[in-house]
C-alpha cells in the first residue's frame, strides 16, 4: 500500500500555475547507445493544454509512455501530479486518462466498450449509463452504438477511443495524436470537447503533427526532435521568436536567380534571414517595407522578374519548420 499524499502531492484544487508535470533532464535509452529521450526538461501547469510537436520518431510517444508510467526513464527526474512514476505509478494512473495513438478496443460493441470502461473505472451503474449516453451523443456515436468497435471506420474508432476516456474523471489527459482520421467537423467537435474540459480544470498533454490544431488548442508547446526539446514556450512567444518578424515568400524568373538572391542578402544585411533554393526564397524580416523596396529595386536593376511575392505573419508551422530545420542544418 502506498503512503498517503505528502506535501508535494498536487491536490485536485490547486491553483492554475501549479505544475502538475515536472520533468528534469529526462533520458531514456533502449540499448545504452541511442537515446529516445535525451535530456528533456519541461513543466506542465494545471489547467493548460501543453502540446508536444515533433516528427515521427522524435520521442513524443516515448515521453507519453514515461509520463503514463508504461516505461521508466533511464535517468533524470519526473513527477506527475506530485508523484514519482517509478514509486507511485498506481496513484498517478488513478488520476490520468490516456488516448493512445494506436487502436485499443475490447472485442465488443461501441456501447459495450464504453460500459466496460465504466466498470473498469469503478463507476456505479446509473452513473455509467448516464455518462455513456451523454458521450455517445456528444461524439455522434448513437447510430453505431450496437456495432462492433473493430468494424467501424477509422474516424469512428478514434471517436470511440476519445469518448471512452471521458467515462471517468481525471486530472490530466494525455492525447497521443487523437485527431488522426477524423473529418474537419469531428476534429473540431473533439477539440472543442477537450477545451470544455480544460475550462473545468483538466490539464491536457497533446501530441500532434497537425500544427493548425495545436494552434487552436494549445496554450504552450514544446518542439521535440531526436529526443531533445528544441524550444518550448507559449504560442504567442514562439510566433514572436524572431522579434515579430514577418515572412516574405518570393519567386523570381531571370538569367541568374542565385546571383539575385546573393546580392539581395548583401543589401538587406544580417538582420534579415534569407533562405534561397533555386528560384524561390523565404525571407524573415521585421522591416517588411524596406525589404520589399530593396527587392523591387534590385529586380529592376538586374532585370529579374518577380513571379510571386507574398508577405505573411509567422505561423506555428514556420516556428516548427525553422526549429527542426536549423537542427538539420547544424547536423
Amino acid at each position: 500500500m502506498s503512503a498517503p499524499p505528502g506535501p508535494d502531492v498536487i491536490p485536485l484544487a490547486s491553483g492554475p500555475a501549479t505544475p502538475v508535470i515536472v520533468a528534469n533532464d529526462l533520458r531514456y535509452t533502449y540499448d545504452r547507445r541511442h537515446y529516445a529521450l535525451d535530456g528533456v526538461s519541461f513543466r506542465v501547469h494545471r489547467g493548460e493544454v501543453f502540446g508536444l510537436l515533433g516528427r515521427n520518431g522524435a520521442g513524443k510517444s516515448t515521453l507519453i509512455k514515461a509520463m503514463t508510467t508504461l516505461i521508466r526513464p533511464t535517468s533524470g527526474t519526473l513527477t506527475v501530479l506530485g508523484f514519482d512514476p517509478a514509486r507511485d505509478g498506481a496513484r498517478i494512473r488513478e488520476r490520468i486518462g490516456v488516448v493512445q495513438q494506436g487502436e485499443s478496443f475490447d472485442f465488443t460493441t461501441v456501447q459495450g466498450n464504453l460500459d466496460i470502461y465504466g466498470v473498469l473505472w469503478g463507476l456505479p451503474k446509473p452513473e455509467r449509463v448516464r455518462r455513456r449516453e451523454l458521450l455517445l451523443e456528444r461524439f455522434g456515436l448513437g447510430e453505431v452504438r450496437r456495432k462492433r468497435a473493430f468494424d467501424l471506420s477509422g474516424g469512428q474508432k478514434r471517436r470511440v477511443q476519445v469518448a471512452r476516456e471521458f467515462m471517468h474523471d481525471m486530472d490530466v489527459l494525455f492525447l497521443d495524436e487523437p485527431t488522426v482520421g477524423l473529418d474537419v467537423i469531428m476534429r473540431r467537435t473533439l477539440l472543442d470537447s477537450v477545451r470544455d474540459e480544460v475550462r473545468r480544470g483538466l490539464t491536457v498533454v497533446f501530441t500532434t503533427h497537425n500544427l493548425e490544431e495545436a494552434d487552436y488548442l494549445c496554450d504552450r508547446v514544446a518542439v521535440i526532435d531526436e529526443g531533445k526539446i528544441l524550444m518550448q514556450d507559449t504560442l504567442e512567444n514562439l510566433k514572436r521568436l524572431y522579434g515579430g518578424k514577418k515572412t516574405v515568400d518570393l519567386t523570381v524568373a531571370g538569367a541568374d536567380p542565385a546571383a539575385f538572391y546573393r546580392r539581395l542578402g548583401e543589401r538587406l544585411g544580417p538582420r534579415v534571414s534569407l533562405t534561397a533554393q533555386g528560384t524561390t526564397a523565404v525571407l524573415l524580416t521585421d522591416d517588411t517595407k524596406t525589404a520589399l523596396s530593396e527587392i523591387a529595386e534590385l529586380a529592376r536593376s538586374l532585370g529579374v522578374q518577380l513571379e510571386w511575392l507574398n508577405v505573411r505573419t509567422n505561423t506555428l508551422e514556420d516556428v516548427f519548420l525553422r526549429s527542426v530545420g536549423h537542427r538539420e542544418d547544424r547536423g
Partner: protein
Amino acid sequence: MKVPNILRLVYRNILVNVDPGSMMILVGLPGLYLIFFGYGFQALGSGGTGGASYLAYLTPGIMAFQSVMAGTTGGSMLWADRRWGMLSQLLMGPYTRLQYLLGIMLTSLLFGLVGALVMLGIAIALLSVVPVGLGPLAVMLGTITLGSIFFGALMLLLSALVKSNTAYNSIQIMLIFVVNFASTVFYPLSRGLPLPLQVLFRINPLTYIADAVRGAYLGNFTATDGLQLVVLAVETVVALFLATRAYLRSDVSFE
C-alpha cells in the same frame, strides 16, 4: 462499496470473452469429444480402464482436460489484449501489471471449473454416467484448479515470449494436441507404446491431473495420485514464477 480491482478485471474478462465463438472452443469442443469418443469407444469394452465403463473413464478425463482449455483461454486473453491495444490501455489505467495477471488467471480458472462442471453435467444428462458425491467432487475441482493454474501460467509464459500471432497459434494448437493425446485423458497408458511416448505420458502434467480427477471420481484415489499432485504443485509454482517474470518484463508498448 468499492469492488476490488481484480474482480473488476475478472468481470471485464468474462464480458469480453463470453461470445459464441469462444464458448464453442471452451465448452463445445470438449463436449463433442465427450459425446463422440464416449459413444464411439464405449463399444470397445473396458479393457485397461480398471473395470469402469469407457464413459465413466472418459468423463473425468474430459473434466481434467478443461484445465488445458482454461490455460489456453488465459493465454489467448493476454495475447488478444496485447494485440488489440487493451493491455497497454489497462496498464495506463488504475491497474498494476500483477493485478492484470491475476485477473486473467482467475478468469481462466473460473472458465476451467465451470467447463468441468458442464462436462460432468453433459455426461450425467446425456450419457447416463453416475453422479459423484460432494467429497470426491471437491477433490476433482481442487485438482482442476491446480491444473488450470499450471496451464494458465504455461500459456501466459508462451504469450509473453512469442511475438508473432501465427507462431503463437501454431504452438498453442501443437501443445494442446500433444498434451491432450499423450496423457491418460482418453485412454490408459499402454505398455505397448514406444518408450519415448511412455516417457511423454509419464511427465505430462495432464496425466497427473487426469489420474487424480479420475481417482476421485471412481473412488480409487491412490497415494501415487497424491504424489503426482505434489509434483504438479511444484511445477505450478515454477511455471507461475517463470510466467510472472516473463510477463512483467515484456513490452506492452503502443505506437
